[in-house]
């Protein structure tokens, strides 16, 4: 398997879909394209491309019947369902990867603290049934696991506010400034990407903001209606926070002990330095927020620019040392 060229994912996915499709269509003469596409979780175009291939397929060899399936653009007709034979039309068992993908995801979703209890129970029942039906194929699913993190009480309030379309009041902790701010937000949706976030219209900053639930110190559902402006939902599959091109640039040099910075902070470049260090260039709308990072790095790194950020870290450290009755060593 090693060294295998790029997998023809589409051909495999399409084949497995078409195998299920013939079973499904056999039971439903005149099925509507829109309904079938929805049931299979595919676009109508994808379904139509399957319907182009199916008439080229058949079970028998040496000149047997091909599947006579066609569509008028709205409904799907199969004129010779007998061509498939009674047996070849039965639903197929789950493959190991299919069982793993579905079971691992289902188990992960049941760990979401904010899931409604009735939904969690339904998912647990479904998971048990799929495990049984998958049989041996379910075995490998134990080798993959996912835990979502989210704060149960906060999650439940946000979820309720969204479904009842009500505004929220939160006290929110901002680690960059080590401060708690009060805000009213109109929640739009909950997103779990490692941590759980609520995407909302923040009425204080009059902008779309993403709030991490474990940083919500306090939450209340207000009586006011939630009225977020119509905004386009972003694809959150990439990083939730993307620096903008016009944000100020910060340069940090770290030793080997500070290389983790490149893993946690999206950056423009990370050049290797002699001795195992890195010179990391990144952009942030608020360079002052990186003072915490400079302090955390201690001897493992320093801010090169902007100079005032470096100064602010130095003076914060000197101020802290004063409390220990230990004078800071003079700069060299």
């Amino acid at each position, binding site marked *: 398997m*090693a060294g295998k060229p790029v997998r023809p994912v589409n051909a495999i996915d399409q084949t497995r879909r078409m195998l299920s499709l013939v079973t499904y269509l056999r039971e439903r003469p005149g099925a509507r394209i829109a309904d079938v596409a929805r049931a299979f979780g595919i676009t109508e175009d994808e379904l139509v491309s399957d319907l182009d291939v199916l008439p080229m397929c058949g079970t028998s060899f040496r000149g047997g019947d091909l599947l006579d399936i066609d569509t008028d653009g709205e409904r799907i007709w199969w004129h010779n369902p007998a061509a498939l034979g009674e047996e070849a039309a039965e639903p197929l068992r789950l493959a190991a990867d299919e069982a793993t993908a579905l079971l691992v995801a289902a188990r992960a979703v049941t760990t979401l603290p904010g899931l409604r209890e009735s939904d969690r129970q339904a998912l647990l029942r479904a998971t048990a049934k799929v495990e049984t039906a998958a049989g041996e194929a379910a075995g490998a699913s134990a080798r993959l696991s996912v835990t979502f993190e989210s704060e149960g009480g906060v999650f439940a309030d946000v979820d309720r506010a969204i479904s009842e379309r009500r505004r929220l009041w939160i006290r929110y902790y901002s680690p960059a400034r080590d401060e708690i701010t009060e805000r009213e937000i109109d929640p739009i949706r909950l997103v779990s990407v490692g941590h759980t976030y609520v995407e909302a219209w923040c009425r204080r900053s009059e902008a779309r903001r993403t709030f991490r639930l474990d940083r919500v110190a306090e939450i209340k559902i207000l009586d006011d209606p939630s009225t977020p402006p119509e905004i386009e939902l972003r694809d959150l599959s990439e990083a939730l926070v993307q620096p903008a091109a016009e944000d100020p640039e910060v340069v940090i040099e770290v030793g080997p002990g500070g290389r983790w910075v490149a893993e946690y902070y999206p950056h423009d470049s990370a050049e290797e330095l002699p001795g195992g260090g890195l010179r990391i260039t990144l952009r942030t709308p608020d360079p002052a927020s990186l003072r915490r990072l400079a302090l955390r790095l201690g001897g493992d790194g320093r801010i090169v620019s902007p100079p005032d950020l470096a100064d602010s870290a130095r003076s914060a450290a000197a101020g802290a040392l004063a409390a220990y009755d230990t004078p800071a060593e003079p700069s060299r």
Partner: protein
Amino acid sequence: MAIAKAERLMNLALCLLGTRRPLSKRELRDSIEAYVEAGRVTGSRLDTAADEAFNRMFERDKDDLRELGLVIETVENIDGEVGYLARRDSNRLPPITLDAEEAAALGLAAKVWQQARLAGAASGALQKLRAAGLPEDVDPYEAHSALEPRIPVHEAAFEPLMLACRDRRPVLFDYRKATAARPEPRNVEPWALECWRGHWYLAGYDRDRGAERVFRLSRITGRVRVRGTGFTAPVPDVVTVRETVAGWAGETADRSARIRLRSGAGYPLRARATAVRELDGGWDELEIPYGHGLDAWLVEFGPDVVVVEPAELRADVVDRLRAVARG
């Protein structure tokens, strides 16, 4: 025009599923248009090059069909000729009945993967269940929940490691430890992958170190190579990735520390405190759990935190502050 691969795979699958007796390679080659076509493109069917090309294609196609779950048997008849078939008994989905609520719950779960292979496999599973009568048209999540769970997979090492865990095959990869400049080769028998706080980790047996190790996938550099077959060390029944990672993150505190914190500052420290006492002059005193990494975290709060005890933590924090003050 070359015949689409999906059409070829579909015909092979239907032939193997539709037959009651094993079909020989020759019969399959003659009856599937795509194989006939491929022979014509390459030249004469008697040509050994064409035979080899067909054989390679046929083997790959069988592998692909097995990948999507088809159980294909290889049977030898009395004349010693090899034949293939996919028996209904071994390929039929056992009866499964799911109600509308259960169906909707699975529908939500099938959408969470952000990795192509697993996303495809999850929809494939749902489609098979759909063909077996999984109820449709009810989607309570769309109606009343705004929850959108997503499982992120950004690491290139994920897919090869997932397959190696599945097939229990040893792997070789270059791994850069958190504090190391250069990656080092690691020889690992991979047991399980776990996603925690949005990052993927691998647990397995490190052959060179002769012990269990946990690896963070984002620190794997270069390609993951599969090395031979078979594990040499026993696989434990329970693999505990999370405990190990929590230890790295300093979340397995075994002691406690006393600190002074300026009023209003350091909310996350307050949230973890086991005791808080108000002092004079705008300060509070907190008892907090003391585990690995606490010193670096406390330094982040600059002049708003003063460590009272233990002396060891106090000294570590002072050292770090001095390093920053020196710039």
